[in-house]
């Protein structure tokens, strides 16, 4: 699975260390995996294992200390217009209204668009995340979950090839979370060209429901612990899938793996279902 030629994103022996007082702290150690064009990959792992660090490398905000990170075969040299990002801590510009925030992102990702068109698209995406009524409000007047939905609308409206999302639904309540998951799949799956998504989450159900593959990291320093193919066909129907016995079994195995982290289990064959 590692480093196939056609992969959109390739991580090869990626190592990231942070400088600390006492020396170097290794956050990610020897990570290798690829993400195919149009593939939806979730990364899960316990808190502090380096998930956000991994995404910073893909965002172009952090340079690898060792190994390489490639997009379309070229090393990542910085942020690029091919990537839309949703940060873990919602990161809107507080002096812009919700609508302005989304429009600002669109304008910079798709410079060819006219102003009116930019705002039309901004309104369209704010409607998709259910925030039409709040589009004139400043982030300080929005709840955490609402701010995160604006950030998601901004990333999606930018219409980039690659989407990098760091626990985007972490601050959203259960009901909205389900709606947003479905919306995300909708926007990802119905496009003529599917986006390549790297999605970080703590939530095993969310990872399975959304992804083609789930990459599980070990505790700090993060290494790839398991790389699991999710066998369920798309489009996925939530209620049908969650009730099925194959799903329940699959989920149980994944959960066991997740909590069995570091127990030194041998490679199970079922992982390659």
């Amino acid at each position, binding site marked *: 699975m590692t480093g196939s030629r056609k992969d959109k994103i390739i991580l090869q022996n990626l190592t990231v260390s942070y400088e600390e007082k006492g020396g170097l702290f290794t956050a990610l150690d020897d990570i290798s995996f690829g993400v195919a064009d149009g593939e939806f990959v979730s990364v899960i792992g316990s808190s502090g294992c380096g998930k956000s660090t991994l995404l910073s490398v893909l965002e172009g905000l952090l340079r690898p200390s060792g190994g390489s990170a490639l997009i379309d075969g070229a090393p990542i040299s910085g942020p690029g217009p091919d990537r839309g990002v949703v940060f873990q801590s919602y*990161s809107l*510009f507080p002096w812009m209204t919700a609508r302005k925030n989304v429009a600002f*992102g669109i304008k910079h990702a798709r410079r060819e668009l006219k102003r009116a068109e930019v705002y039309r698209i901004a309104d369209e995406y704010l409607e998709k995340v259910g925030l039409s009524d709040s589009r004139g409000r*400043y982030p300080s007047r929005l709840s955490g979950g609402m701010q995160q939905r604006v950030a998601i609308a901004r990333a999606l409206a930018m219409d980039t090839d690659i989407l990098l999302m760091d626990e985007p639904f972490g601050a959203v309540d259960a009901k909205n979370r389900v709606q947003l998951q479905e919306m995300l799949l909708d926007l990802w799956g119905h496009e003529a060209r599917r986006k390549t998504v790297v999605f970080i989450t703590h939530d095993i159900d969310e990872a399975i429901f959304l992804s083609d593959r789930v990459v599980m990291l070990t505790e700090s320093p993060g290494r790839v612990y398991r790389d699991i193919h999710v066998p369920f066909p798309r489009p996925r129907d939530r209620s049908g899938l969650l009730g099925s016995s194959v799903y329940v079994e699959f989920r149980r195995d994944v959960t066991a793996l997740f909590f069995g982290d570091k127990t030194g289990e041998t490679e199970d064959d079922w992982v390659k279902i």
Partner: protein
Amino acid sequence: MSPAKLSFRTRYVRTANLLFAIFLLIQFLPNRISKADAPGYAVGFAVIAEAALLCASALATKKTGLCLIADIAAFLYALLIAWTLATAKFNLTKEMLFPPPGIVFRQLAEDVPQLGRHIGSSLALIAQGYLLALAAALPLGLVLGYSARIGNAAAYVAKFLGAIPPVVYIPYGIALLPSFRSVSVLVIFLASFWPILAATMSGVLLVERRIVDSARVLNVGRLTMLFRIILSAALPQILIGCSQGLTVSFILLTSAEMIGARSGMGFYVKNYSDLGNYTRTIVGVLVVGIVISAVFFAFNKLQKFLLRWR
């Protein structure tokens, strides 16, 4: 909220209105001073204030705003009452040093054209020096602050220079520059330049990294980054520096005008107190207070507007 939401009581039954009535009543007490008074001017002034208050009462939509205006009016009336009683009615102070309000207001009314020129002269100097400082300090502070974010030491030089109080440049400026006006502009420039520069730099340094990062992943250009992201994010800090600069500018300018000028509000006060005309001295002090309050009122309005997103 519609105007009708405030009750008649909150609108019109207020200490300020009571004090206004008391002020009118004490006019009927006999005068104890020898010189002629001109109570009509003081009463006229109070009536104008009261008319303004009543308009505000009728049109106000927010309780807090109305309370503030009414409190200011009440304070004003209390001052007028005390002033009238202490001077015209009981003659507790020296007549010559402390004339009754009527005389002062009459003088104020007579001197309006002259005062207008002095105010204009002072404000023109402030505007020149301050705007020049703003135009220079803001971009420089942004660039220095931003380069300090990525580890450049230039910022510390500015910190050191900013610690020098701008008055120390006055003698140097006088030796160097041809006219009083150019020295004043220089002093105001320096007085505002350093606080604005320092505030801009520290504001830029304090901008949260996630804001810069979210701009970076959106691929904004260098100028957009500086002027639409960093500037906006640092604006609360920058405005604090701007307000400090403005305060120091007024202090220095009025002092400078008292020393070396032939015009300006400071000159008006100093000149007439030298001539022993204390009525005009008081007029001058009042005018300085009013003008500076008005400038800061406008500044605060602007600040509130610029930071409406907070």
